[in-house]
């Protein structure tokens, strides 16, 4: 047996022993356990409000990734600014899963209501993808809160008022209806700045 053969034999045995102590790695996302999934599902923190989404869009948050899980038909009619369309039925396409398989973006799913986005959230979470949220109430809530905000009949406190003002501002930004105060409801009195009148200047006349 010459040296070259011996080297080959030893190398093969070393490689073989090394690989014998390893186990196959699964590269695909491993599904999380059902009890853990339930724990995650009941967390309210997985929801974001339309106002928060609006704020992120307006401030051009670079970490925001909006995913519209409705059909292409609905998507082509109306969607949120910058949203990607991944219909629920196409969620598991490899090129679509790539949008979920990252940890840079805050992925927000939305549909018309909450349920389709919720289903997508559960499936994606079950596959082990992270940083995924659902827009609470979906586009219906978006229209109600952002595009056509109603003025509360009674504004209970400062926070409510701020929220309303915010919604009104967002509505203008997104081109929704600007709500004017309804008839009969007196508009809140706004202070008008008092401009002090200066001394009248003498102008001409018979002096």
């Amino acid at each position, binding site marked *: 047996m010459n040296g070259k053969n011996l080297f080959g034999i030893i190398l093969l045995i070393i490689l073989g*022993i090394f*690989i014998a102590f390893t186990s*196959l790695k699964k*590269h695909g996302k491993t599904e999380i356990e059902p009890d853990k999934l339930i724990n995650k599902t009941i967390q309210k923190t997985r929801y974001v409000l339309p106002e928060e989404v609006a704020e992120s869009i307006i401030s051009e948050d670079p970490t925001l990734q909006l995913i519209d899980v409705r059909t292409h038909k609905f998507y082509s009619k109306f969607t949120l600014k910058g949203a990607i369309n991944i219909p629920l039925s196409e969620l598991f396409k490899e090129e679509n899963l790539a949008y979920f398989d990252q940890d840079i973006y805050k992925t927000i799913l939305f549909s018309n209501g909450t349920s389709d986005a919720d289903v997508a959230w559960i499936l994606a979470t079950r596959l082990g993808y992270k940083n995924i949220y659902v827009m609470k109430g979906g586009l219906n809530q978006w229209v109600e809160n952002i595009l056509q905000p109603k003025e509360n009949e009674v504004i209970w406190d400062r926070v409510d008022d701020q929220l309303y003002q915010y919604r009104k501002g967002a509505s203008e930004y997104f081109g929704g209806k600007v709500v004017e105060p309804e008839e009969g409801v007196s508009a809140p009195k706004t202070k008008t700045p008092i401009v002090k009148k200066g001394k009248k200047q003498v102008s001409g006349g018979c002096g």
Partner: protein
Amino acid sequence: MAPIFEQTSEWNLIIALLIGIAFGWVLERAGFSTSRKLAGVFYGYDFVVIKVFFTAAITASLGLLFLNYFGVLDFSKVWMPTTFLWSTIVGGIIMGLGFILGGFCPGTSVCAVATGKIDALAFVVGITLGIFFYSFTYEYLWEDFREYGNIGNVKIGELIGVTEGVAVLIFILFGLFAFWLVDKIKKEYNIKDVEY
């Protein structure tokens, strides 16, 4: 992440062509385009076939597991054919007989045709006729038999209850034993290497 190209990719044929050229070239260089060298393993005067095929199998299995270990290859995406035990045994017997009689296996026969060997050409014509015969009589003769002994997508490791890595180690040791054995036979019977 391997596979580098999706199965439906238009690159498939191009990649297949390049791999085919490389494979043919290696076969030819290893002397596998001559039926005397190939049939030699059955007559006991040339054992290169055993060495080459064991080396290829060991390299491939080690390569697959190491690529998986380093996260390059996703094992779940590696296609594995279903094992039909009985039809495979019968197919193996037919293949073995053909190998001894003709002196080629399908791949090496095509390689030998490329070098202009008449016997290889006859072999390829025979293969083609066999393929047509099988295809046209499949429904009447072979369909039921083909499914015989279906044991699913099993690996040797699973069958004997060890991990893939251990199965490969056993295979390496078995291969090394085979190398040693054929060398011993050659020495024992004073078989000289032949140039074809």
